[in-house]
């Protein structure tokens, strides 16, 4: 049990799903209770990771290895570092919250709904925990199917269009990513004579720059569609808007992070030369900046509450990718933290929209106005999450965006200047949204009798609010968790980064000796 902690976390939702299938479908309350219990167990099981994780160790921890398909060298290989630790905790928390938020929102075909949700949860956790490319790819694809159904069956009026668009877009990217994976896999064979999908093994390779470039861009398509980065973002507004509330929360909170996680975990450390190539950096940085500004501008124009939040994700994820491509400790750590922040605050915003939608069945901003008069608690929580999203100091968004901008500034002042515009615009559309929906007199008589938050709604919003404050006021534990894994990535890309700047190296030579790859790679690339 102890040494299989990651497997337990990973498979609790799946096991829960199989038991759920045994419950007769008219036992609606039982199904709901069971689904919530499973997610709660999943969350509680993941909590010990916070204490078990050794912050002074840059390697993967709690590693589990078992043979799976020996004839192709695919293994069941799980492991955790600081980056995946935070994302796993985010996943289990957001999963729990979104299932709880579905209690009264979903009344039809309950059993299927919760079954798909649990399958989805296992898929997402698998993506963050896999250290074997084959296993990773399986989980990456597995989660597509339940998400298709969650949008396509329980979604809004244009749900089918949105669902298939999401599905095909992601599939399109992921099959190209598969080619990239296979190219690396085959290259490992030509270099060492063995076939393996093990990510830690693949990191030992010397990959010629041309191959690195091809694989990098193949991965880029897969990950950029998932994030989504600027030209690939068009599936996002549709999917987020049409999905049921819990689906949007999971999409924004966790699914998008799979793309950024892919960059951090695979593209950067496996293909350091391609990632640090100046053309690559410029392209990705400017795509991110376009996403930041464009997402914010489009958000300003929205008349639909949910669509506004959806486009705000494009803008926020732009910060995350910008932080990644800054390729320095501040950028990367800020980016990972901002991914968590975005999961919390945008998750909250979608929950807020969902609560209003459940009461009024409309998402038109113009239909609302003056809600703070009848729903003060609701307005308070909305206000906090809105400010968190806008990057107000003492709340989480500020910490993440500030660190990213620090990282970006270090590389290019122009980048930082343009991105700051995104923050200003972000404050504009969020404050304006808040003003239009919450303040002023109640103009629409239908809003006069709205009920404030009930206990269940408080129960699933307050934990997220608490996390927002925690990260905003005392982010130190998070940065401690991220320090070593981020340093490891930075040193793979720029081995001299810390020494050249006279900074204290978080990974002294002893730790580096265990991983001779960067030095060897440099030596091989030099002639």
């Amino acid at each position, binding site marked *: 049990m102890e040494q299989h902690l990651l497997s337990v976390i990973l498979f609790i939702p799946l096991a829960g799903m199989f038991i759920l299938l045994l419950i007769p479908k008219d036992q609606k309350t039982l199904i709901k209770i069971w689904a919530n219990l499973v997610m709660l167990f999943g969350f509680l099981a993941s909590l010990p990771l916070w204490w078990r994780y050794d912050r002074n160790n840059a390697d993967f921890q709690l590693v589990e290895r078992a043979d*799976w*398909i*020996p*004839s*192709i060298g695919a293994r069941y290989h799980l492991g955790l570092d600081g980056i995946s630790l935070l994302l796993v905790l985010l996943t289990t928390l957001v999963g729990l919250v979104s299932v709880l938020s579905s209690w009264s929102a979903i009344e039809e075909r309950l059993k*299927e709904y919760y079954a798909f949700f649990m399958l989805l949860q296992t898929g997402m956790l698998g993506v963050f925990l896999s250290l074997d490319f084959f296993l990773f*790819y*399986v989980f990456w*694809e*597995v989660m*597509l*199917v339940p998400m*298709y*159904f969650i949008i*396509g*069956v329980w979604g809004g009026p244009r749900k*089918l269009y949105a669902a*298939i668009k999401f*599905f*095909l877009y992601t*599939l*399109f990217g992921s*099959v*190209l990513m*598969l*080619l990239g994976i*296979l*190219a690396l*896999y*085959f290259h490992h064979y030509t270099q060492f004579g063995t076939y393996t999908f093990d990510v830690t093994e693949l990191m030992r390779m010397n990959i010629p720059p041309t191959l690195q470039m091809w694989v990098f861009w193949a991965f880029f398509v897969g990950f950029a569609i998932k994030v989504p980065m600027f030209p690939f973002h068009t599936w996002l507004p549709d999917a987020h808007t049409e999905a049921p509330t819990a689906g949007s929360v999971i999409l924004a909170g966790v699914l998008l992070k799979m793309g950024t996680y892919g960059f951090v975990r695979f593209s950067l450390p496996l293909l350091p030369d391609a990632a640090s190539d100046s053309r690559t950096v410029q392209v990705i940085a400017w795509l991110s900046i376009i996403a930041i500004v464009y997402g914010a501008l489009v958000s300003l124009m929205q008349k639909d509450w949910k669509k506004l939040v959806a486009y705000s994700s494009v803008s926020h994820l732009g910060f995350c990718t910008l932080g990644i491509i800054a390729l320095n400790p501040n950028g990367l750590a800020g980016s990972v933290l901002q991914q968590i922040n975005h999961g919390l605050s945008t998750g909250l915003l979608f929950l807020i929209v969902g609560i209003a939608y459940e009461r009024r069945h409309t998402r038109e901003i113009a239909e609302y106005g003056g809600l703070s008069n009848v729903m003060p608690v609701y307005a308070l929580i909305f206000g906090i999450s809105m400010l968190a999203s806008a990057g107000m100091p003492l709340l989480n968004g500020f910490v993440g965006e500030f660190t990213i901008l620090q990282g970006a500034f270090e590389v290019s002042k122009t980048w930082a200047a343009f991105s700051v515009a995104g923050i200003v615009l972000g404050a504009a559309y969020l404050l304006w949204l808040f003003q239009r929906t919450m303040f002023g007199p109640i103009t629409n008589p239908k809003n006069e009798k709205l009920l404030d938050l009930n206990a269940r709604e408080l129960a699933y919003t307050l934990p997220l609010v608490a996390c927002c404050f925690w990260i905003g006021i005392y982010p130190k534990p998070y940065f401690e968790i991220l320090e070593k894994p981020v340093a490891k990535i930075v040193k793979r890309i720029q081995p001299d980064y810390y020494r050249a700047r006279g900074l204290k190296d978080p990974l002294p030579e002893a730790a580096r000796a265990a991983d001779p790859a960067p030095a060897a790679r440099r030596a091989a690339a030099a002639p």
Partner: protein
Amino acid sequence: MNFEFSATDFFVLKPAVLLCLFGCGILITDFFIDARQKVFNAFTALLGLGFTGYAVWQQQSYLKANGLNELIGLSGAVTIDGFAIFFQWVFLISTALAVLISARYLEIEREHHGEYYSLLLFAQTGMVFLACGTELVTLFIGLELMALSFYVMVGFLRGDRRSNEAAVKYLLLGAFSSGLLAYGFSILYGISGSTRLSEIAAAVASREPRDPMVFLALATTAAGLFFKIAAVPFHMWAPDAYEGAPTTITAYLSVASKAASFALLLRIFQVPLESARATWEPMVALVALLTMTLGNFAAISQTNIKRLLAYSSISHAGYILLGLVSGNQTGLQGIAVYILVYAFMNFGAFTMVVAMRGQEVTGDDIDDMAGLVFRRPTYAFLMLLFLLSLAGIPPTAGFLGKYYIFLSLIQTRHYYLAVFAVLYVAVSAYYYFRIVKVMFVSQPAERGEIADSFGVKVALGVTAGFTLLIGVYPEPFLRLAQGSLFAALR
């Protein structure tokens, strides 16, 4: 030459002999069976398949016990090797599944006759020779035996105009393609003066790579073979034949006949024509690309599920051909895995169409599946599994087949083909998900009862079980496909 009939010859031929005997036996016992008891014929056929399976298993264990790679019979006309045994298993599985799903379907169609089962067994007899034949005449006779049985089976619904039309189309185009193939074979014979594949291989290898005779033989043989596997531009018969044929036969045709034709194609391309690879590789690559393109794009606009699956099976043939284009160990192993996986998933999907056939409904419209999840949730989820597998989404078996093909293309540096092949996965997901959408989102149609039977349930259980099992724990199946399988061809 020594024409004595030895014990080895009998051992080699045993599966074919058993199939023949049981096929003829059914024709005789059918006379004594009351019209309502025709299901008895199905039991006889299953029994025959059981004996045949035992004979194949004997051959397999004999090879293993004696450490042999191959067992040559009839003075070199047939060879039992890993390749032959693998394909015999695929045929056995598909024939058994076809028998299982047929009884109830034929009763609904009011065409439950004993010949049907005999024809299934005769068709399989032909396939056995396609898998183990190593000589042109044997191969050609095997092919014709299989094809003739299929012509009759496709037109088995005598009262149905579509079935008759399909049979005539299939017969005419099939005969034409057999003619082309025979022409190619005759030139191969002319080049080498022998009908043995190994001797032809030597003769072809000794010629110039650009020899016009080799090219002519290659072109005609290839055209005939492409007809049989329904590769573009020789695919036109497939959608019509698939649509008109009794659905059980469509399933059988799309799986077993395709596998058998691939067995023939692999033997011909890998043994006598391997030395002319430089000539045929670009051609096969082009055909594979066209096949995937047309199959996938034509499937998008279909409203009839049998036609949709027909085009999808055309596109799958394209993927399998890509394995031949790369032609390395991974590619050939990929073909084997793909064919095995395809047998289960495609049969499963067609079985679902068979189950849709009710007393009042033909069940081959996509809309007949509307709201299946409300009527029969288990069936809807099984169909989802088959469709995901056909699209190649892990962790289903279909992904594994595609995985090998993609990998082999990367290994042999066919990058452009690889990119096209993966992108068509996304295209195919679109039309497979049209069915998913209808099953899971549309409101249920009032379409009467679903005509499932015990046989259909068993068939669904087996196909779904393997589709999932091969996807989740493929190791034993990969071993089966690895090892000696294509060693025989090298």
